[in-house]
């Protein structure tokens, strides 16, 4: 296994904190950069993300050209607040409305490719409690400064918010350590160098994103890594230490469903790449049990594993961005 990548392509966000240099280089290369925030009921955190990014990376340092929110149909005030703080806000279902409708983070990321203008797109989760502009400039640094880097993942020291007001200093990344890392170690040892493959914050060139499929749900981060690795190799990747990220803790059942979707995506990728010959049917239901009145009742959660094709295959996209399939 080649482990030189981790030394060469791992950075700390502070290496890119000279924002004037990033602005100069961005302008010299004539790049456009979009920030995309996929949302579903994020009224508590969305305003802070938009406001800080806009103040620091649009008004003070013109690094971002646009902030786009793609919403999965929030029932709270997410869209209203985001619009009020100056983001371009879209409902996912209203983008490419003639296509079949799906709901999920991956769907929002994929559709963002249609409505954003940037040559580079930064995706940040919208539930980051300790949002800071380093989350964006840290990811953008390698993409703006180094021509060989096309896709950048975040990694963190991840404390978890417990209860209403306390913070536990360690934890997080359970699905990474229990599911992804064993899988990568078994099948793609090189990829274990990506320290937090499931982090929800990443950035890349449009020319990469438009050529890979996007699973609708939880599997999007895993599939993105596998597809980019398969098409362009590990050398186009970089990872950046963004210090700390405070996020909502998810219960074990939710993590179980997340793991199901990731395993589903992983196995489908293996089959697609011809790396395994799977003889049996894969089911698409995650079955968990509840004890109700002394009786175990199954709680069945259907995870279809729908996937959007590379967006460059969509005629409307090709027309809008003047692309040849």
């Amino acid at each position, binding site marked *: 296994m080649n482990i030189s990548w981790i030394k060469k392509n791992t950075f700390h966000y502070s290496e890119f904190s000279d924002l004037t240099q990033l602005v100069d280089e961005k302008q010299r290369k004539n790049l456009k950069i979009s920030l995309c925030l996929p949302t579903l009921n994020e*009224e*508590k*955190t969305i*305003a*802070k993300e938009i*406001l*800080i990014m*806009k*103040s*620091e990376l649009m*008004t*003070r340092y013109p690094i971002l050209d646009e902030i786009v929110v793609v919403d999965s149909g929030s029932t709270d*005030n997410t869209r*209203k*607040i985001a619009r*009020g*703080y100056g983001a371009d806000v879209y409902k996912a279902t209203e983008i490419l409305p003639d296509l079949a409708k799906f709901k999920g983070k991956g769907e929002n990321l994929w559709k963002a490719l249609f409505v954003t203008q940037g040559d580079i797109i930064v995706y940040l989760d919208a539930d980051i*409690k*300790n949002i*800071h502009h380093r989350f964006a400039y840290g990811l953008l640094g390698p993409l703006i400064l180094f021509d060989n880097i096309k896709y950048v993942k975040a990694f963190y020291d991840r404390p978890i*918010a417990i209860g*209403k*007001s*306390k*913070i536990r200093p360690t934890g997080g990344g359970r699905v990474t350590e229990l599911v992804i890392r064993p899988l990568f170690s078994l099948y793609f040892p090189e990829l274990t160098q990506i320290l937090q493959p499931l982090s929800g914050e990443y950035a890349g060139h449009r020319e990469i994103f438009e050529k890979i499929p996007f699973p609708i749900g939880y599997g999007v981060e895993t599939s993105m890594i596998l597809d980019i690795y398969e098409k362009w190799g590990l050398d186009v990747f970089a990872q950046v230490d963004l210090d700390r990220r*405070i996020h909502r803790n998810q219960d074990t059942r939710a993590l179980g469903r997340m793991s199901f979707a990731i395993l589903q995506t992983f196995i489908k990728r293996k089959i697609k790449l011809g790396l395994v010959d799977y003889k049996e049917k894969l089911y698409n239901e995650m079955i968990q049990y509840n004890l109700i009145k002394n009786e175990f009742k199954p709680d069945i959660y259907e995870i279809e594993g729908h996937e959007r094709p590379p967006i460059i295959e969509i005629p409307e996209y090709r027309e809008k961005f003047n692309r040849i399939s």
Partner: protein
Amino acid sequence: MDDYIEKLPGFVDTIKSIEETIITNIVLIGQIPAPTFKEKRRTSVFMERLAEFQVDECTTDGYRNPIGIIKGTSESKPPIFVVAHLDTIFGKDIDHYYSIQEKSITGTGIMDNSVGVGVLVSLPEIFRKLGLRFESDIVLAGVIQSLGRGNLRGIRHLLKTWATPIRGAVCIEGAELGRLNYYADGMIRCEVDCNISPVNGWEHKFKPNAILVLNEVINQIMKLRLPQKPRSRVIIGKTSGGFKHGMIAYDATLGFEIQSNSDKMVKSIFNSIKDIVEGTSHEYEVDLRLKTLSNIHAARLKFNHPLVKSSVAVMKKLNLTPVSGPSESELSIFLSRKIPAVTLGITRGENYHQQNASVEIEPISKGIAQIIGVIMAIDSGVCDEHQLD
């Protein structure tokens, strides 16, 4: 003088145009926990942000108060201080992450004093945006160790070691917009600790209860006859003690403040309480200790001091109604050193000292315009010829 007063309403709109940057500063600094004596991380972020906004000098004094200096046009005019305390009453394991809604910001310590500190750090950018230059150097100081046991050590040290005269000062507090503090009461902040040995001794037939002993102290303090003139009061502010519901308390603590606009009266009440504590200790045969945490002298500007009159004029021009009361904060240290100063609030809010404290965004621009108006008044010379009593 009227020149700058007339400009103030126009300032509000210009300040509003960089509201995002101001709120960003409030959030990025306020989200760093800074309990009194543990302000180091917040100090670093404060310095980073000040340096970002390109003040002429950015440093810490010998006590680690972070300071930024914007150079003035005059070599001879003394500096004007603008200060906000950095520390909060909340521990570092409390969630300090803020939530911004359409019209408000919510979170731990937002009113006391994240808004004040965020605005302080934003002033260089606001001055630039408004095209303002001052004759005096403007010293922006985030002072540490202000609250509770901090006993205003940061500001005391800063002023004690500042080598040159100071022209005047503005102290910034997050809330409430409309406050105009120009006098400080004399104050002694105390704690009474009651400790009872868990070991049985010959003197106790029945073990005394520390909480009940302090209750007796409180009862006796309540019986003290306090004069209305000089205006005086004792505030019982904190209690703690005991282990569990079904066990006699061996330890208990009572925290209180004696406040009066007469230092003599503060001292006299303190002596009475000292007698109460000693008497109770003797009669109950328990270890009862009175500790002084903080001592502030009464000091004031007169209402007709030009700084107060100018501040009132500034506030009225911005349609604010000044509300005055005593303030035992940084203001008292400036005034006790004969430096004219006022304390002003930035915005309105609710749940002042709770974790769900919340401030309104809309009034912030007006609150800042008011601060700038008072700085301009000091720069125009309103403090130059009037000594404090």
